[in-house]
């Protein structure tokens, strides 16, 4: 086996890992703020994929511009899903929100399959690749990783520098106290769900610029997000990014040594191992 192949695979894996990280941040943000595990995460990722696909294919817009539209729509979709499916069960036992977000999942998948079938689609777009001697990096993959890093930076700037962002952290930390200070918790929860959805759909849109997509593909990334979130610590967005990189690296490197079918086996093996030996994840979880 040669070193170049190893490095190239590692880089490829790491680059997509950033995108996995963004998807997982969406899941972990929602959990961290409202203790809801969003089982509609995968289908929302798929909506992001097809958002970019449809705008690119039928409007002819540059996919990265399309991504901005998808992100904004994602915020609106998330707020809508919050008020329709999450708000009324926000204080109910966890099973209720699992069921209601799973219902949203089934509805999106049902409508999506009816319209799009389950066949694969491709965003027919490419960027010049970056050739650095030993390794060649696909342009779209590099762009996706850079955008993912930018999105993470924006998320942190929002959460730590703006009043609305601080409200989200305050509500996550202690919702009752936040209400006592005059923070309108319902609006803030809806906003947090909106941003979580925005992250999921943005990740989906980025994936569409790199890989073939289908309406069920979101499910795969949802499962990856779960592994990543457990790896990085529930409710910890930066942990999610690092978890994403680790998962991307596994995905890049494993196929060099064994059959690709081993990838999920190892990923979920790691998932169980982490749950057993360090249930707080690598970087700790929020107190609850």
């Amino acid at each position, binding site marked *: 086996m040669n070193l170049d192949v190893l490095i190239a695979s590692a880089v490829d894996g790491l680059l997509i890992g950033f995108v996995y990280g963004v998807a997982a941040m969406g899941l972990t943000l929602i959990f961290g703020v409202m203790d809801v595990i969003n089982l509609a995460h995968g289908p929302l990722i798929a909506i992001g994929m097809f958002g970019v696909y449809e705008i690119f294919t039928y409007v002819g817009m540059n996919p990265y511009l399309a991504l901005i539209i998808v992100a904004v729509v994602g915020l609106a979709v998330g707020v809508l899903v919050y008020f329709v499916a999450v708000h009324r069960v926000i204080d109910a036992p966890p099973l209720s929100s699992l069921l209601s977000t799973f219902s949203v999942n089934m509805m999106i998948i049902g409508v999506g399959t009816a319209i799009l079938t389950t066949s694969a689609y491709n965003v027919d777009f490419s960027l010049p690749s970056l050739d650095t001697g030993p390794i060649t990096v696909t342009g779209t993959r590099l762009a996706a990783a850079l955008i993912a890093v930018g999105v993470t930076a924006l998320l942190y700037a929002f959460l730590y520098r703006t*009043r609305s962002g*601080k*409200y989200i*952290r*305050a509500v*996550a*930390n*202690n919702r*009752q*106290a*936040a*209400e*006592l*200070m*005059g*923070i*309108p*918790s319902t609006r803030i929860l809806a906003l947090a769900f909106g941003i979580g959805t925005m992250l999921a759909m943005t990740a989906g849109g980025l994936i569409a610029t790199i890989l073939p997509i289908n309406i069920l593909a979101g499910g795969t990334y949802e499962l990856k997000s779960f592994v990543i979130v457990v790896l990085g610590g529930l409710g910890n967005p930066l942990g999610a990014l690092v978890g994403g990189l680790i998962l991307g690296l596994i995905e890049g490197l494993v196929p060099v040594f064994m059959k690709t079918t081993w990838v999920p086996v190892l990923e979920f093996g790691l998932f169980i191992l982490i749950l057993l030996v360090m249930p707080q994840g690598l970087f700790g979880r*929020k*107190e609850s």
Partner: protein
Amino acid sequence: MALLEVKDLTSGYGELQILWGMNLEVEQGKLTALVGSNGAGKTTLLRAIVGQLFPWQGTVTFDGRDVSKLRPYTKAELGLIMVPEGRQLFTDMTVQENLEMGATPKHSRIHMDRNLAKVFDLFPRLRERAKQTAGTMSGGEQQMLAVARGIMSEPKILIIDELSLGLAPVLTLDLFQALRRLQREEGTTILLVEQNVRMALKVSDYAYVVSEGKVDFHGPSSEVENNPAVREAYLGI
């Protein structure tokens, strides 16, 4: 007319009734104390006042307006602010951020810098700790922060549940003095729930004694202090 008026209030948890017709008036600009033994229903009353619990019957009137059915964040916007039992800080956020979160009501947000200077003046320790994560401070510092966060909201009435619980006597005295200053200098109305009955009666203008979800006795604090029943039950004399 009283700034805050509670009339025939009943409430509780699920089926369990705790408040059995509470009546209370808090005068504008006064420091009113609410004392009573553990489990008397003081915290429950405050929760019903701020809207964390819904009143079953009766009304809560604030600033001439029936606020019985409003959510806590709407009441905060109106200037009804509670420093809850157990502090309930944003433990993962810094001291400074906790104070910023206090300045959420619109009328207080525009004065945030001025109010920051004010609470730092009142509690110099908090200025030193501004960048520290709130959850890592000592109990006394956390209680200062909880009170300071409440002051940041520019409350018309500041309701404080168990100011001195678990604090060293020196610190308790500091906090009481800070409240006194706030009341004198800013004219802030204060409703104070206290375990330390002796101290509460010393600093307050008016006092309510509650037991088993009802007001037992009320009057000017000096009178309550000299009431034989109160002396026996709460002051151990």
